[in-house]
């Protein structure tokens, strides 16, 4: 880890300990040992008395009218309690997004009149075991009238295309236009206009734990308790209250251990709502866990877009303007709650780290007969980085410039920070050129170029691919509720409670899925409060205990919750110092608080333990100074003050290509990132490595492939290929730390590793095969795709 000179210094926290103790240390994650021993409790591990199991009848057709559902044979099967259909109870899954021109598709908990994708839930069976429920699913008779199917978004725009929602008159879910003003002129001034059609495919993040839900409606108490594999328990609670029209203060949502989310679990799907409806109808606990097959049919489909992009450049490589027409394939709809945002974010992220002043885009979000488009680690940005970074390389080759040269030529200078992009996104802090140059240094880039030339003489292909991006993380309410039109807050919460024994519990509105929150937030609190790390316990995921929060998405947890932890710690610290000052007969400002001990700065012999102060605050409250309330228990909220903060990185992929087979071997992969202040380098790098694996999977292996009838052909891991250890390259991660303007100086990092990966790998392959004159424009980069590019050019 290296630290470059910060472009902006953060103000010192008041009363902050002189030396940082815990933040910056690679503390081992607290949860790892129990999880690795198999002692973790996940939703499917929970069993309640009298519990029923749900299974779903799903549509085998991509588009059909439901003529008739006959559940009588299923109901006769021993152990079957009920079969719920859309006609009996279907609830519309509400939307929290309100944008002019954004349409509201029918999105019912169970399809009622029509199914629109293969796998759409049509009926829900509740039975005494999952196996019986699955047997009953096969006995439910559904009569369908198949309708014409449209699976390609560009075809869906044609006049005679089948309509998913007849009353719309077309298949356009959302349309957005943006014009900078100077674009037309810039194209006239250009020495060169480079235009391409770039295609990104549909794939899914595949967390190791699929979705799961256990709903327990208690008829006597009239309460609803829900255990869910979710990234946002509080949001789920509010959503369920709205969808079911049921009082929110009678709902408790618990996210137990969650085996990865990666976006999918910041969505709510039809089947999950149906599980709750079943429990409320039957007055019994109902559990549903998703099979992998169901998961592939339903969850986390994203990134299927076609870009028609034009770039106006000068001979020296200066990028004058970009015009992009984006057709984003949303399947039947967006999901609650992100709706069309993945594609909006692609459009917003396209300018990347470049000083681009003229940028026009036309975004068309189109519905097709495929599963809904939900959030997926990277969230629209990987497509933006792929398109922009491919274009940089394509332009560089036309101008006979090096890929590093054209990027350095166009990157925003540190002196121009903060920078506002044409669409109004603010880049707060950072040094993009520094990070790119550092990538070249740690990779010995210029040596690699020589090696490439040497190998080429031996007939071997080595390719180097650069890609970079800027990711705005942790968006604030101003952006969420303004340009995004979203009823979502950008803040987070922390409730800090000390007990008489001097231990501290933090209840967070945040909810993690394996990001080591229990460890890193304890590190932050330990430093900001002055209490020993071991004495801080961090808890998340229970709406009955934790204050409201929005969950882990948009690489926001460390930034927002980290800030809330600092703010709550400071408040609690102030009170502790007030009490300690009274006990020690000192002024609060003259006291030091660290290592769970409060000491006089002037006389080290005058000291009191945090435990004693806590005991005074609670059990011996008679010793409190006058006017000080008893207890050490408070809540703080924090939202970043700057509109947003941006992390960024440069990736360099080094690949070998077997020109006879089209096989690509990832040899080495370099990442230099700037995610602001790093709380725990070990867990941070773990996330970068994991995200990189996600990115590699998407670039080269994973594809949700639909045939012309809307049947998903890659619905198991036999056909949906995930990257394994055997394809992972040697990875070198390095960081610089430019603090953000947020309270802790943090920037987000959970998604970054997955963002420019496809761009870097595609650029590397293209670079390696430059002698064949190939141009990779479509993802994923399968061996056959590479092979046919080579052979087509050879012919």
């Amino acid at each position, binding site marked *: 880890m290296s630290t470059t000179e910060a472009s902006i210094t953060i103000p010192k926290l008041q009363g902050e300990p002189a030396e940082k103790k815990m933040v910056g240390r690679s503390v081992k994650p607290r949860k790892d040992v129990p999880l690795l021993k198999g002692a973790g409790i996940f939703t499917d591990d929970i069993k309640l008395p009298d519990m029923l199991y749900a299974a779903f009848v799903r549509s085998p057709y991509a588009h059909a009218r439901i003529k008739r559902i006959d559940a009588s044979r299923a109901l006769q099967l021993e152990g079957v309690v009920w079969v719920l259909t859309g006609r009996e109870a279907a609830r519309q899954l509400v939307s929290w997004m309100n944008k002019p021109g954004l349409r509201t598709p029918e999105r019912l908990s169970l399809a009622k009149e029509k199914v629109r994708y293969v796998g759409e839930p049509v009926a829900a069976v509740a039975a005494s075991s999952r196996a019986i429920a699955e*047997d009953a699913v*096969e006995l439910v008779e559904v009569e369908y009238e198949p309708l014409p199917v449209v699976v390609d978004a560009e075809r869906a725009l044609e006049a005679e295309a089948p309509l998913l929602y007849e009353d719309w008159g077309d298949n356009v879910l959302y349309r957005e236009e943006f014009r900078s003003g100077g674009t037309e002129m810039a194209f006239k001034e250009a020495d060169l206009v480079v235009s391409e059609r770039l295609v990104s495919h549909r794939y899914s993040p595949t967390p190791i734990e699929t979705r799961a839900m256990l709903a327990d409606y208690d008829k006597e108490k009239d309460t609803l308790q829900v255990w869910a594999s979710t990234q946002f328990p509080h949001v789920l609670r509010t959503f369920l209250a709205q969808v079911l029209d049921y009082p929110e203060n009678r709902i408790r949502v618990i996210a137990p251990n969650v085996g990865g989310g990666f976006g999918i679990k910041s969505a709510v799907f039809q089947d999950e709502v149906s599980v709750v409806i079943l429990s409320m109808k039957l007055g019994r606990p109902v559990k549903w866990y998703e099979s992998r*097959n169901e998961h592939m049919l339903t969850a986390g489909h994203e990134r299927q877009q076609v870009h028609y992009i034009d770039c106006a450049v000068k001979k020296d490589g200066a990028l004058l303007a970009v015009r992009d027409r984006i057709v984003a394939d949303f399947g039947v709809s967006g999901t609650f709650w992100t709706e069309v945002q993945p594609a909006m974010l692609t459009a917003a992220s396209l300018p990347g780290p470049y000083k681009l002043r003229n940028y026009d885009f036309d975004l068309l979000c189109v519905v097709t007969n495929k599963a809904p488009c939900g959030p997926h680690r990277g969230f629209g940005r990987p497509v933006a980085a792929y398109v922009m970074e491919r274009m940089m390389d394509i332009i560089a080759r036309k101008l006979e410039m090096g890929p590093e040269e054209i990027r350095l030529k166009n990157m925003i200078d540190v002196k121009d920070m903060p920078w506002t992009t044409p669409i109004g996104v603010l880049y707060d802090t950072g040094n993009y050129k520094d990070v790119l140059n550092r990538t070249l240094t740690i990779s010995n880039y210029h040596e690699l170029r020589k090696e490439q030339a040497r190998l080429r003489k031996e007939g071997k292909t080595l390719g180097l691919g650069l890609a970079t991006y800027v990711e705005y993380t942790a968006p604030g309410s101003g952006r969420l509720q303004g340009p995004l039109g979203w009823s979502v807050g950008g803040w987070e919460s922390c409730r800090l409670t000390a007990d008489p024994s001097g231990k501290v519990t933090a209840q967070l509105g945040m909810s993690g899925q394996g990001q080591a929150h229990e460890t890193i937030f304890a590190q932050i609190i330990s430093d900001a409060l002055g209490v020993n790390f071991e004495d801080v316990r961090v808890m998340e995921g229970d709406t009955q205990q934790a204050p409201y929060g929005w969950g882990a998405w948009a690489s926001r947890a460390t930034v927002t919750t980290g800030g809330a932890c600092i703010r709550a710690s400071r408040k609690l610290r102030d009170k502790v110092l007030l009490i300690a000052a009274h006990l020690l007969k000192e002024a609060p400002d003259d006291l030091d608080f660290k290592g769970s001990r409060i000491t006089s700065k002037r006389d080290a012999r005058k000291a009191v333990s945090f435990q004693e102060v806590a005991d005074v605050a609670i059990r011996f409250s008679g010793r409190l100074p006058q006017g000080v309330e008893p207890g050490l228990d408070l809540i703080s909220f924090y939202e970043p003050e700057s509109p947003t903060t941006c992390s960024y990185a440069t990736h360099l992929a080094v690949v070998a290509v077997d020109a006879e087979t089209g096989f690509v071997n990832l040899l080495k992969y370099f990442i230099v990132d700037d995610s602001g202040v790093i709380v725990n380098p070990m867990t941070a790098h773990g996330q970068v490595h994991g995200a990189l694996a996600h990115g590699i999977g998407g670039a080269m292996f994973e*594809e949700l492939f639909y045939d012309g009838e809307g049947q998903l052909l890659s619905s198991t891991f036999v*056909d949906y290929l995930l990257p*394994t250890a*055997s394809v992972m390259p040697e990875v070198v991660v390095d960081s610089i730390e430019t603090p953000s303007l947020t309270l802790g100086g943090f920037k987000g990092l959970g998604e970054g590793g997955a963002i420019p990966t496809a761009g870097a790998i595609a650029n590397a392959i293209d670079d390696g095969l430059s002698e064949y004159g190939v141009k990779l424009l479509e993802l994923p980069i399968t*061996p056959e795709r590479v092979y046919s590019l080579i052979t087509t050019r050879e012919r």
Partner: protein
Amino acid sequence: MNPKSFEYHAPKSVAEASSLAEEYGMDAKFLAGGQSLIPLMKLRLLSPSHLIDLGRIPGLSYIRDEGNHLAIGAMERIAEIARSDLVRKQCPILSQCAHQIADPLVRNMGTIGGNLSHADPTNDMPAVMVAAGASIVAASGQGSRVIPAGDFFVDTFTTALKGTEILVEVKMPIGPTRRGAYLKLERQAGDFGIVGVAAVLEMSSDGRCVAAGIALTGVGPTVVKATRAGEILKGVELDKNTIDRASRAAAEEAQPSGDLRGSAEYKRAMVEVMTSRTIQAAARRQAER
């Protein structure tokens, strides 16, 4: 992901297993390592009402050196074959193939008998058996018979076994003049191959190829024996021109169909590339004992 309910049988002898199969006919399936059958049942693509587990029959797991062949019991796990020093020394192609099958979890459970009986055209073992001219021993209550590997694989998921017959042993020819290799073009370890090629060469002391067996994985309804490719190699020195001609012949003999792993054209082209690489790899090998 639960299979339909079924009745489970655990016979203690081949004869008992065979008579159960006779009793339940088409409703029954033999269970060996379960690495193909159980997933198919969980996906409900296959729902036999009776499962006859061969795992409790004693004496079906062994690897024996019988002089001119290795005798391998049907219930021998793939992982054991991959680990076996005897196999590595006497029959490297089999060792090489075992190492490339699926992943360690599957290899730990999967058996050679199950692998062959399942007759999945993308399974790797059949090509090795066909290229090497192995024999397969089938037994029932009425006795046993030997089926040449070349006649064993009839069609996709279909073998020459009768409903009451159980594959009990594989006889894999070995000898000082035989050299074999199995190469698989797979997108990553653990995946099914796009194509796989097995080549077994019989070499004379003066470096000529006396006989050659070439067989292909994943490019037909079942394993494809590339007979013409083998004939081109017979009785000649293995120079580049010969290998190229044999590889082109193998590509012509392949009957690929397109799927998510590649189009028919791509697979055919890859048969040519991989056949060439496999013949060269086999020729480079030291004598197999």
